[in-house]
């Protein structure tokens, strides 16, 4: 069961981040040329792969209870951020992420930027694509390393991220535009719920408490988090209607 959660969490979190990275790569590619944009994408992918390959195995040397305590705490803080923003967006208190608007803004900035050639590449296009993929991808690398490391299976988490990368890349090539129809907030809501669930589960174990039924209680924690977050959305929506 935890293996399924592991792959699903890595897949969903990665898909969300890759959709955002694709918008930046497309903006750089269309306005500054595909060679520089794809070179930036390739360099960032190699850098992210190296981070996962080096830090992933390094985590196996840390005692599992200490790892779960620290990783659980970080995931919980990190997951609550995702969940809080997704709740506020779903309830209408925060604007939804608009890939089309982000694409237009990035493309406009790229169009007006100066020309500088380095190593035969348009430097603006390369760095825009590299930075975008690296920064969006760092969250993916973090999730793959922490989820995989704590479960002793970085490969499985990397598989979930790899499937998401392949899927977003294929859809990106087919659509040749920002993926505006991806239900990003729903996916972010799901990722926030999963990060929070794993955070609660591992931090509790790392702190020395034991769950009734051990791993079998993980789905119950997920249900608790989803019900809590859904109730928050419903209450906030009602509040919005009453005060509108």
């Amino acid at each position: 069961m935890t293996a399924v959660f592991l792959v699903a969490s890595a897949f969903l979190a990665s898909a969300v981040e890759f959709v955002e990275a694709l918008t930046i790569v497309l903006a750089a590619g269309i306005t500054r040329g595909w060679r520089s944009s794809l070179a930036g994408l390739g360099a960032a992918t190699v850098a992210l792969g190296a981070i996962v390959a080096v830090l992933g195995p390094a985590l196996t040397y840390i005692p599992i209870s200490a790892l779960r305590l620290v990783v659980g705490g970080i995931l919980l803080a990190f997951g609550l951020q995702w969940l809080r923003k997704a709740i506020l967006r779903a309830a209408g208190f925060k604007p939804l992420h608009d890939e089309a608007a982000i694409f237009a803004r990035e493309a406009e900035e790229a169009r007006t930027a100066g020309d500088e050639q380095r190593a035969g590449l348009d430097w603006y296009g390369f760095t825009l694509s590299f930075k975008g993929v690296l920064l969006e991808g760092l969250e993916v690398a973090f999730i793959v390393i922490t989820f995989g490391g704590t479960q002793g299976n970085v490969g499985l988490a990397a598989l979930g991220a790899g499937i998401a990368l392949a899927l977003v890349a294929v859809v990106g090539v087919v659509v040749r535009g920002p993926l505006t129809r991806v239900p990003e907030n729903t996916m972010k809501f799901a990722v926030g719920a999963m990060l929070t669930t794993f955070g609660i589960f591992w931090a509790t174990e790392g702190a020395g408490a034991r769950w009734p039924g051990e791993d079998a209680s993980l789905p119950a924690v997920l249900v608790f988090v989803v019900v809590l977050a859904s109730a928050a959305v419903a209450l906030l929506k009602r509040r919005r209607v009453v005060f509108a």
Partner: protein
Amino acid sequence: MRRLRAFGRFWWDFVVGDDWRAALGVVLAIGATAALAAAGVDAWWLLPIAVALVLYISLRREVARSG
């Protein structure tokens, strides 16, 4: 020095984000769970309750701020 500060800022934004009180609440709740576990109380129920509380406070602040 500027790069070091930018690196620290990146990690702060990454993990803590724009509500440090929520992160502090998480740390305190984990500390309390560990303290209870050390005292022989199996406090698996504490973090879920703390998360509900932290989320409620954090959302209330955000909603009040947005007017």
